[in-house]
């Protein structure tokens, strides 16, 4: 017996990479799957029904049930369509997994409005476009699982990804809100911030990584990759993300709601909520001088600048000695 026997799932972006691994495992665990993927390039251009069809073929060959959907999540009608297809085909929707995404990396000062819009449309609006129609049905049936895809590029920050990082961090926030909107109806909503070697991560050139680290800029990967990731260095296959997603989709996970999980290789972490870490308090209005004392000595003590100004940049304030705590 599978963990997802009889469940109906929509998995966006499941023609390749992490989404594909999820669709395959879901089917193996007994779920019927709408395999959504318009088969675009990493930058969102093009279109190819092949990848989704290929996954459906593989699932069927292994004795599972799946149908192809090639709508774009960036369209409101596209999101509605794929949810409708699940209902038309199998009478309901139990699980929605939002993996679809594109990249248009660029430093903020070079980023075109169109590059911002395209990434926000697919990732962030794409989550709204599927969650909205699914939530209506899940609320009515008092059951459902929504699993979103965030990223450490947003939850921790990364160079050259203002659009992608903002969208992915927004998805983490949306996950926490939707969890609260739907929890009382027996629906859970969680998110995964994955690490895996896919077509998408290959677009980041090694030279860019080297440049960042030589400039002392903390990238998401540097912060998140625990030592174990290098110890288990070979485990970056996208399939490794799928078991945690399948677990969150199962009945057993009925009370897990509103969390972001970092999943990479054999490592699964629950992320800190961005709650208050340290506090300074005064029963009145702060002055700038008081803040300078308290921020330096308490609030930001031993907290590093993730991208410090280069040595040759003349930074006003750099030469001001830290004020000793009175």
């Amino acid at each position, binding site marked *: 017996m599978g963990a997802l026997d009889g469940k109906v799932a929509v998995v966006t972006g499941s023609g390749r990479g992490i989404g594909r691994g999820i669709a395959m495992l879901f089917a193996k665990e007994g779920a019927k799957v709408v395999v959504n993927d318009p088969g675009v390039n990493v930058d969102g251009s093009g279109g190819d029904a092949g990848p989704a069809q290929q996954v459906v073929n593989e699932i069927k060959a292994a004795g599972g049930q799946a149908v192809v959907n090639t709508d774009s999540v960036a369209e409101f009608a596209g999101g509605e369509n794929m949810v409708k297809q699940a209902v038309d085909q199998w009478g309901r929707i139990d699980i929605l997994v939002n993996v679809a995404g594109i990249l248009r990396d660029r430093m903020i000062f070079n980023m075109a409005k169109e590059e911002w819009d395209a990434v926000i449309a697919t990732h962030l609006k794409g989550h709204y476009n599927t969650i909205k129609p699914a939530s209506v049905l899940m609320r009515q049936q008092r059951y459902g699982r929504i699993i979103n895809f965030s990223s450490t590029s947003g939850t921790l920050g990364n160079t050259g990804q203002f659009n992608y990082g903002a969208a992915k961090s927004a998805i983490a926030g949306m996950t926490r809100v939707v969890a609260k909107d739907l929890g009382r109806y027996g629906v859970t909503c969680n998110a995964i911030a994955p690490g895996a070697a896919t077509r998408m991560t290959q677009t980041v050139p090694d030279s860019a990584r080297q440049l960042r680290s030589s400039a002392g800029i903390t990238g998401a990967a540097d912060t998140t990759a625990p030592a174990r990731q290098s110890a288990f260095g070979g485990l970056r296959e996208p399939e490794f993300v799928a078991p945690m997603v399948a677990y969150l989709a199962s009945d057993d996970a009925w009370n897990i709601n509103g969390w972001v999980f970092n999943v990479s290789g054999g490592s699964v*972490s629950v992320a800190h909520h961005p709650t208050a870490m340290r506090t300074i308090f005064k029963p009145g209005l702060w002055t700038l001088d008081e803040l300078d004392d308290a921020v330096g000595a308490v609030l930001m003590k031993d907290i590093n600048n993730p991208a410090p100004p280069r040595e040759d940049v003349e930074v006003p304030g750099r030469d001001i000695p830290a004020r000793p705590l009175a």
Partner: protein
Amino acid sequence: MAKPLEGRSYVVTGAGRGMGREVALLTAALGGSVVVNDPGVNVDGSGHDTGPAAEVVKEITAAGGKAVVNTDTVATEAGGENMIKQAVDAFGRLDGVIHVAGILRDRMIFNLSESEWDDVVAVHLTGYFNVAKPASVIMRQNRYGRVIAFSSGSGLAGNAGQSNYGAAKAGIAGGIRCLARDLGRYGVTSNGISPAAATRMTASIPDSARELRARAGIAQAPVREASIVQQLMAPHYVAPMVCYLLSDQAWNINGKVFYVSGGSVSLAWDETPDRTIAKGGMWTVDELRGLVPSQLLAGLQNPAPPPADLDLPGRPVAKKSA
């Protein structure tokens, strides 16, 4: 001694009312020249009124400060570019942008219409891009600058009925962290404020909604309760931390989000991994079923648990008494 922001020039979005207004007033009092941006819309984004921004400019100039009115919307690329350009035209330079502007269209996700989603994301999140982009070009060239954006506990902690606003505000926090990494090496800092204050915007949440949430056991973004703090909910309490981040002293504070309410200033956790389970291979669903509740999530609560009388697959059946 020179004022800390003397000779510098700033754009404050949404500066006609509430917290934005207070940021503009204090920035000007500390010597900064300010583009006071506010299209004077209603909380839901409708309408238009040049009055609020003009009023703030009048106050600043009457007190001997420098300010100009801008009534563009941050929701368009041209609007964002315009207000940055206006700072350069009026004051000859640009040293900082503070993005406070925002609207609300609260609705539970299952009732949230596409336009309610789009409008809120456009003002808060795309509005952030619309000002940060042109500002970053100038700041990178100057090897100096400050970008401060307003996030919210609604997205950081999550608040029912605000998936559009919460997503946009959490997205801003992500943008803050990315911007910090793109611009830090050029002497620019990027930080965020997650404020709490009694303003026109918070007054729009009906008390009945708060009561409903509390009755249903839905956790919400914390409302700080001590009476002394209640008195400190006036919006001007948010301004000093913003202006401190603008000052030269804060040259090395970058990529952080600060909760500010009354006299309380907190540094928010980065969303780093908190607890980890690891295996030298691929997990099975069965293994995760054993370890996730008992280890990874031990002691952590569901923020909106299903009611006890809901027949829920997977839930142990013992709890029928309630």
